[in-house]
């Protein structure tokens, strides 16, 4: 196993983690600020990807497609917050799960109704396609490097938003004591709609960015959603910093586990059985990581409360 292969896999893990962060950041904000378990977050990811594919197909511009993804997911998020989610803040978590699960089904069948059952086409723009050679002779797709850059930029933007702006102060205050900031005259329902739309827009952005190298199809959001929940549990609910660290940890564990565990087992097992056992253990790796983190810190790495 060469150094180049290992470095390439580390980059892959990093890129995967940073895309997970875009999903997890919205999820953790919504969970932290509003106390809401939003299973429909994966649907917003799908909405972003479909909006991007539709706009890219009509205009040919990838940047317009990204803008459309942000806008469509934010609008969809704001609408479901106002129509459905708003009624659920005081409800039990089980009711929230039930209602947002219903939203998944509605979004999936609605998308199929509008776009049909066949996957849509969305491709990497020509100026970002193909590989580049990095120092050390690693060939790496330019688009994946761009994904890492965009993800880091979003992370910096979110840090600035929560730490340096008035909205950010309100968000953090809302996390700690929602009655008090309502009493201080902050329009809490408007703040909630805003946070929800922001989280939705991030999910939509992730959907569009990832859609260009994966398939844009109904139900694409749910597998990512599960990992995003793992990320926020590891990182600590409500913490953007935790979501970032957790996402990178999960991305690296998942990617490197998938490569190295089968190789590790090959040292003392015959190759066929080693591949089977290694692959099986690799698919559990992120959950094992989650359990270890929870044993060590029950509230997650940066969580204030359980």
């Amino acid at each position, binding site marked *: *196993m*060469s150094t*180049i*292969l290992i470095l*390439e*896999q580390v980059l*892959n893990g990093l*890129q*995967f983690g940073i895309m997970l962060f875009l999903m997890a950041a919205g999820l953790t904000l919504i969970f932290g600020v509003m106390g809401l378990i939003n299973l429909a977050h994966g649907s917003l990811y799908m909405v972003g990807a479909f909006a991007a594919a539709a706009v890219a197909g009509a205009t040919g511009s990838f940047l317009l497609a990204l803008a459309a993804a942000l806008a469509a997911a934010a609008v969809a998020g704001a609408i479901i917050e106002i129509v459905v989610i708003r009624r659920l803040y005081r409800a039990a978590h089980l009711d929230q799960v039930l209602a947002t699960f219903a939203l998944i089904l509605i979004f*999936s*069948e609605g998308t*199929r109704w509008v776009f049909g*059952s*066949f*996957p*849509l*086409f969305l*491709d*990497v723009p020509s100026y970002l*396609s*193909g*590989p580049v050679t990095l120092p050390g002779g690693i*060939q790496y*797709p330019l*688009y*994946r490097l761009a994904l890492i850059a965009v993800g880091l930029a979003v992370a910096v933007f979110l840090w600035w938003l929560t730490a340096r702006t008035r909205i950010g102060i309100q968000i953090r205050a809302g996390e700690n004591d929602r009655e008090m900031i309502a009493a201080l005259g902050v329009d809490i329902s408007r703040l909630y709609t805003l946070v929800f739309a922001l989280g939705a827009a991030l999910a939509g952005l992730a959907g569009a960015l*990832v859609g*260009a*190298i*994966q*398939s*844009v*199809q*109904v*139900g*694409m959001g749910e*597998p990512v959603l599960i990992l995003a929940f793992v990320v926020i549990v590891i990182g600590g609910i409500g913490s953007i910093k935790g979501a970032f660290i957790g996402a990178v940890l999960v991305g690296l564990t998942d*990617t490197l586990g*998938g*490569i190295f565990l089968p190789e590790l087992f090959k040292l003392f097992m015959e190759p*066929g059985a080693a*591949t*089977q056992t290694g*692959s099986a253990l690799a*698919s559990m790796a992120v959950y094992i990581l989650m359990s270890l983190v929870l044993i060590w810190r029950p509230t997650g790495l940066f969580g204030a409360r359980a």
Partner: protein
Amino acid sequence: MKRLLALSTAIALGASGAMADTKIGMITTLSGGGAGLGIDVRDGFMLAIAQAGRDDVEVVIEDDQRKPDIAVQLADKMIQSEKVDIMTGIIWSNLAMAVVPSAVNQGVFYLSPNAGPSALAGKGCHENYFNVAWQNDNLHEAAGAYANGTGYENSFILAPNYPAGKDALTGYKRFFEGEIANEIYTQLGQTDYAAEIAQIRASGADSVFFFLPGGMGISFLKQYADSGVDLPVVGPAFSFDQGILQAVGGAALGVVNTSQWSKDIDNATNAAFVESFAAEYGRLPSLYASQGFDTANLILSALDKASADDAGAFRDALRAADFDSTRGDFAFGPNNHPVQTIYAREVIQEGDVFTNKTLGVALANHSDAYAGNCNM
């Protein structure tokens, strides 16, 4: 969803009239992931029924949502309360394994328009179970045979970690005579293949074989094309059928894939099928649609000879396979699975549309490896 199903059932009822003599139950995947396959099978099947213009055949269509438990419930309902004579439609091997053995043991005929698990081709074969598509290993075996003919000597092979994925790699290795550089089982439903592509780059192989149906194949091909790895790729038709090629786009151009059907197979039945399917549904047919179409025509040809109530005569009529297949020659082997020619096709672009062009025969009159274990 329920209402939509009721509606499609009502349309089927309306088209065939209330005085149906033969009742066909179709359980297929019409919602959720992979719905495109079920919709193609249904549309191909119903096109043949409509073209026959018979008013004595009734088709009941239900959606299994790709869930084995739901498929089993639907099958029980169809057999016990709807009293269907013939069943068909299932796309996925795990669903077929849940439904088919109990259905055929209750005296119902089952004709598979897609799934062909090895368990039902060998020891588990049954006189009332007919496969009109292929045994699961077939297209992969043809890919292995094609790779030999092209002179590949060292293949990197990958498939998802589930029964059909294992059948796929087994099938390829059964016919491929070169070496295997590495064999990888990915997760079912995996969407990111960066790690596997990096391993391919480092492997020193001269070719890549993959079986990644549906969205998995779209993701893999797009990422592979973008990675700068330029080893030739071969695979079965499932990742290159008409339904998903448009979503893969230019990344699939030039890839060789194996299929028992292609829209340019030169016979009158196929030409008429491609034209009428496109006219009726506004899209080109996929291999799944051709399988649905052939399944319906096989049933109709048998019904011309015998009623489904006369099980012995009807079974013989099915086994004779006396119908015009879109694939040209079609016959059943001793285990009621097809003996057919499998072609190598290449992905090309016709105007704005990505489609396949037949290159030649990969395996002629090919049966399957399990027929010998079948004692009917």
